[in-house]
Structure formats: C-alpha cells, structure tokens
C-alpha cells in the first residue's frame, strides 16, 4: 500500500490549503458571497474510498474536469457540485447579467467557467510554489451519477492503488451548498509534490 509520512501529508495539505485560499477568494468574487473553507480540508483517499464517499455516493452531480500535463505528472482536477446546487450557484453568478428566468440556459457554460477559473487558480498556485510547469487544457463539463463520472474519468482504473484523490470541500455562507474538489494524480506525483515544501524548508 502506498503511504505518505506525516510530514509529507502535512506539507501536501499546506500546499493545497494555500492554493485553495486563492480559489475561494475567486469563487466568492464570482458569486458575491463569502466562502467558508472547512479546515482541515484535505484528505488523501483511495479510489475505492472515493467511490463510497458519503455525501456523494448515488447522487446526481455536475462536474467540471480540468486535465493537466507537466512536471507534476499528468492528471485531472475536478470541481464537483450536487446537481441540486448547481442552478443556485449559477443564479448567484449570473444575477447581475441576465434575467432570472434565463439563468438555466447558462448552467453548463457558467459552471464550466467557474471550474475553469477555480481549478486553474489552484493549479497555477501549485505550479508557482513547486516551480513545476503545468499546462492546463480546456475544461469539460459532465453531469450524471457521481460514481459513473468518477469511474469514467479515471484513465488508470486498472492500476490498483495507483490513483489517489485529494479531497477538499468548501461551503457557501448561509447556503446549504457544498462544493468538492478532486485531484486524480498517480501516487508518485503526489509524493513528489508533498516533498516540495519540505525541500524548501531545509
């Protein structure tokens, strides 16, 4: 079984927490509301654990996937919302720009753009802190059952235990809306990334 030392785990949490801070700020700018980050907000889980994840298993979800390539390794980042929350988020984002009854037309495009902005911000911050170069591709939007999306999007399902998901959740103030961010990266890449801060501290 792959594992991280306590120090590696802590360093990885800190890298993602810093990156996420910037992403939360952007999200609150977009929807004119305060984002509450749950701290500690990061878990490394196996694919099997991810599939059975309590709040998401069997749920209809919308997700935006941002594939990336570079020194960090090749992987995917996902921003994920419950289907029931997605329209609420789009309403908050679009309220100054279109009439309320037109909002649903923009659901896919608006969520894609939110995903694009947030996931790029996180990846850009990771690149900056690690001195790794990361190239991001065009984000893709999917909607459907959580398990199917997760399974279908994972390129390495046959490699047992080789994929870890970095899990972060955040909450919008005063609303019952939760968002989730997943990173699918192979274990070696995660291990390398976790050593970045440790190396800097030496």
């Amino acid at each position, binding site marked *: 079984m792959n594992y991280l030392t306590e120090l590696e785990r802590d360093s990885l949490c800190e890298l993602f927490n810093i990156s996420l801070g910037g992403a939360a700020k952007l999200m609150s700018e977009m929807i004119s509301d305060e984002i509450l980050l749950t701290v500690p907000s990061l878990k490394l889980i196996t694919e099997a654990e991810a599939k059975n994840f309590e709040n998401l298993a069997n749920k209809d979800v919308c997700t935006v996937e941002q594939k990336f390539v570079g020194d960090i390794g090749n992987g995917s980042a996902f921003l994920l919302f419950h289907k029931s929350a997605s329209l609420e988020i789009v309403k908050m984002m679009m309220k100054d720009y279109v009439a309320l009854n037109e909002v649903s037309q923009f659901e896919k495009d608006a969520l894609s753009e939110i995903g694009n*902005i947030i996931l790029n911000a996180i990846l850009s911050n990771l690149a900056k802190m690690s001195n790794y170069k990361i190239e991001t591709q065009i984000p893709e939007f999917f909607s459907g059952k959580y398990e199917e999306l997760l399974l279908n999007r994972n390129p390495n399902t046959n490699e047992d235990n080789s994929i870890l998901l970095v899990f972060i959740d955040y909450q919008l103030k005063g609303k019952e809306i939760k968002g989730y961010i997943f990173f699918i990266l192979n274990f070696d890449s995660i291990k390398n990334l976790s050593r970045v801060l440790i190396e800097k501290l030496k």
Partner: protein
Amino acid sequence: MSQKKALIVDDSTVTRLMIRKIISENQPNWEILEAESADKAKSILPDHPDIDLFSLDQNMPGTISGLDLAEILKSNYPNSKIVLVTANIQDAIKNRAKDLGIDFVEKPVTPEKIIPMLEKI
C-alpha cells in the same frame, strides 16, 4: 469622433456576455464583436481593420491561443488596446503578456477590472 469597436474572444458564452454587458453599460455607443476562438477571431480580422479593443482569453479550442493571437494583433493593430482576460494566472503566462506589452486581467471578470481598460481608449 468615429464609433469605437471591441472584439471579445472567449470560448465561454457566459464570460463573453459579462464583458459585453460591462462594456455596453459603460460605453453604450461602442460596437461589440465576439468570437469563440482565436482562430475564429483571426478569420474575421480582414473585415475589421478598425478594432480599438481586443479582450482575449488564453486557453480556447483551436490551433492558436490568446497570446498567439496577441502577437499577430501587435503588428496588425499597433494602436489598439489588447487585454488578456484569463483564468490561467501562472507567471509564465503573465510574463509573456508583459513581454508583448499587453494588459493582463485575472478571471473572473468584474466591472472593476474591465472599466479601467475602457477609460484609456
């Protein structure tokens, strides 16, 4: 004074709509064109030699990026304002924009970020 013209290049309909609304509320007389990729934008340039403001996304489907398009625009539209409006906020992208001498705006777009660009034109 002749009518000013802006071209918004972004694959996101929502972002194009937002930028269009911010410009048209601030400058109601401007003509606003849109393109959903840099390739598409490039193909309509010959019909519009008189564009005053370009708002360019960086990552879009197609063969060229926003910065690639900016390079073409720098020589063809030496007096126009070019702004890169992108979610890709890596230093490499910022530095390339700086080297080209174009402005850089981090998404999400807000009136506070876009209006100062209009006032300088």
